[in-house]
């Protein structure tokens, strides 16, 4: 009989911004995201174990894909394909690798490869602009910011999304997007400067 693997009393939650999007993954018996037992079970074909590993990350994966690909249908495809690739590469999930970074890296890779595959993305990008109703006071700044973010290169958008929206550390952002931490930091600086927002510190 193997001994129960040691684990924290409470599994770590997905670190999201502390605003309204916070979601408790679980309390008892749920996936400790670094639980080797779960990985073993998932590799053995245990759907519940696989779900416990990547299921809670699916909404964030979808949003990342939607930001990357700017197309809900493609984002959905990307997440489904990423799930399959994640299951196939479970054996490459090292014990010291956080599941979140590992899975979101697969999603980002999938998005990049889908983006490369579509020759029409530039054409579609042009159709994003919509006619807006007259703006109320305060809305104009918001719309400017929305426009600026939408005009950023996809990778820069992904950096901002991971760093500001998912509140991930820069090192993890860099790992997911396969860029250096310095490059991730530069991209955040560049984007924020371009959007004329206040920059105080980027060091997480």
């Amino acid at each position, binding site marked *: *009989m*193997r*001994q*129960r693997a040691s684990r924290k009393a409470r599994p770590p939650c997905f670190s999201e*911004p502390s*605003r309204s999007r916070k979601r408790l*993954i*679980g*309390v*008892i*018996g*749920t*996936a*400790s995201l670094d*639980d080797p037992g*779960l990985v*073993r*079970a998932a590799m*053995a*074909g*245990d*759907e*519940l*174990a*696989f*779900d*416990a590993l*990547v*299921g809670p990350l*699916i*909404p964030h994966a*979808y*949003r990342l894909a*939607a*930001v990357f690909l700017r197309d*809900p249908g493609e984002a*959905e495809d990307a*997440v*489904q394909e990423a*799930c*399959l690739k*994640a*299951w196939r590469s479970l054996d490459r999930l090292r014990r010291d690798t956080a599941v979140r970074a590992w899975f979101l890296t697969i999603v980002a890779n999938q998005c990049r490869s889908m983006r490369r595959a579509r020759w029409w993305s530039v054409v579609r990008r042009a159709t994003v602009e919509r006619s807006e109703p007259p703006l109320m006071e305060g809305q104009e700044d*918001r719309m400017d*910011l*929305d426009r600026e*973010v*939408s005009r950023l290169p996809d990778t820069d958008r992904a950096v*901002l999304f991971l760093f*500001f*929206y998912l*509140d991930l550390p820069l090192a993890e952002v860099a790992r997911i997007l396969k860029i250096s931490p310095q490059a991730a930091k530069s991209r955040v600086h560049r984007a*924020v400067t371009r*959007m004329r*927002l*206040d*920059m*105080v*510190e*980027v060091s997480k």
Partner: protein
Amino acid sequence: MSNPTRDRIAATFDRELEASPVPAGLRSRAVHAAVAAARQQQGQPPRVLALLAAVLAIAVIATLVIGSHVLRSSVPTRPSPPSSPPAPRSDASLVFDQAHGDLVLFGGQAGYGGKVGQASDNDTWTWDGKSWTLHHSASAPPARISQVMAYDTAHHDVVLFGGTTLTATPARGGPAYLNDTWTWNGSTWKEQHPAHEPTFDFSWPATMAFDPVSRTVLLFGFTKSTSGNLTNMRSETWSWGGADWAQLSPSSSPQGTGAMVGGGTSLLLIAGQIWRWDGSNWIGVGPLHNDATGLGSAAYDPQGGQIVSLDGGDTWTWDGSAWTRQHPQAQPQTAGYMAYFAPLHEVISWGDLWGNTNNDMWAWDGSTWNLVQRGTVAYASPAGQLGPAAPAAAAAYIRQNVTNTSPVLLPTWLPVTMDATADLTADFFNVDYRSDQRDKTITFGIVVANPPPGGPGSSDKRVKFRNAVALKYAPAGYAEYFVYDTSSPTSARWLMWIEPGTMSNPQVAGPGVPYFLSATGLTDAEFWQVANSLT
């Protein structure tokens, strides 16, 4: 980074993503499709064989298509039969078969209270999330009740062990306990022939579930009694590794019956309290909820990270540290067979563990129960039962229907907001008042009470109360007042007396009307305020 900047950029993404909400069911679809596709690819033959198989398949399909066109001209097509649920049954088993994505239901009996010679079933049903299918397996375990089943995640099959057969009568005239082991592979049953096997007495229910730590199926039950006295039963824990049973030797073990709840990364056993299997011992990790009847059902909900339990007509959840009574808009009327159904990401409750009156299917979505499929039997509360209802409604119901006895007393003061459940005939009634979290309960009624005896810390007094009728154990104007644990301010306590009055039914008529008031979770002062409010 200043927070305003972070919030403004995050809000920008919020607005952008508002137009692309996460599709409903994406998690379920993506995870299921990935595992299914990967499993399929793992089992695929080499490419050359696959090519040959494809050619063969095309030939077969072509033959079938041509053949079906020929046949279609002469054989009328018939619609598929409607998907009727299995008949309501007690003492059956239901588990989620991960490998095939469906629920598997086996055995039980379409009746209540097994008797030797009474037929039980050995039918196997599966539910795929939409419809029920009755399987006609070439081999199947003989008909039985009270067997245990679990999904074996390590071997991708459903394991069934033991039970009680009602069709065979052993020499001593009692039910025959089985100790055979079967596995279900999604289409047929296969009997296993392990070198070792438990010999359980299934008059005390056994329970079984997959242990994610040892990656074996764990079985908890009780050994056969040699004396026929159930108090001599001894609990045993066994594990199934796919080919043989091995008895384990935990140093601590529950002594009462219970239900295993598997899921997530640990295995729990709800038996008198909550126990966790640590790989070699059962470790107590928490108490049961306030209203545990021992007749409830439970399943682990990985979505909410909670145990969900149907017990005492209520839905309870346990988050690892505390029980909470939930307030769903609707819920099953009975404690059903419960299992987490991964494709829907919901806990399913089907039918009734203890009766043959219900075959509804419900799903718990984390906050309420939704009726998935209405059964074929209209469930009706037993005659004379009411509730849960407001105390005033229960009082009106009792006063209207208890017509052979006078006076009908009821409390007019309760310590907290409570709901009431009443059970009555024209002669008697019993009403249970329960607080929201069931931590305070009051039971009152005209009953012939037989309260359990007290321990060394109990107190039994004669107290002046109302105009009670004199009895052998108490003079006129006195009642018997019992407190189970005088060191606990909210100990269980009861009060028993004979109220002057009449019972017109000659079969139960006595010197007056026997009343019994008991409570748990109330202080002495609260208890007497309830007692003194009786009118």
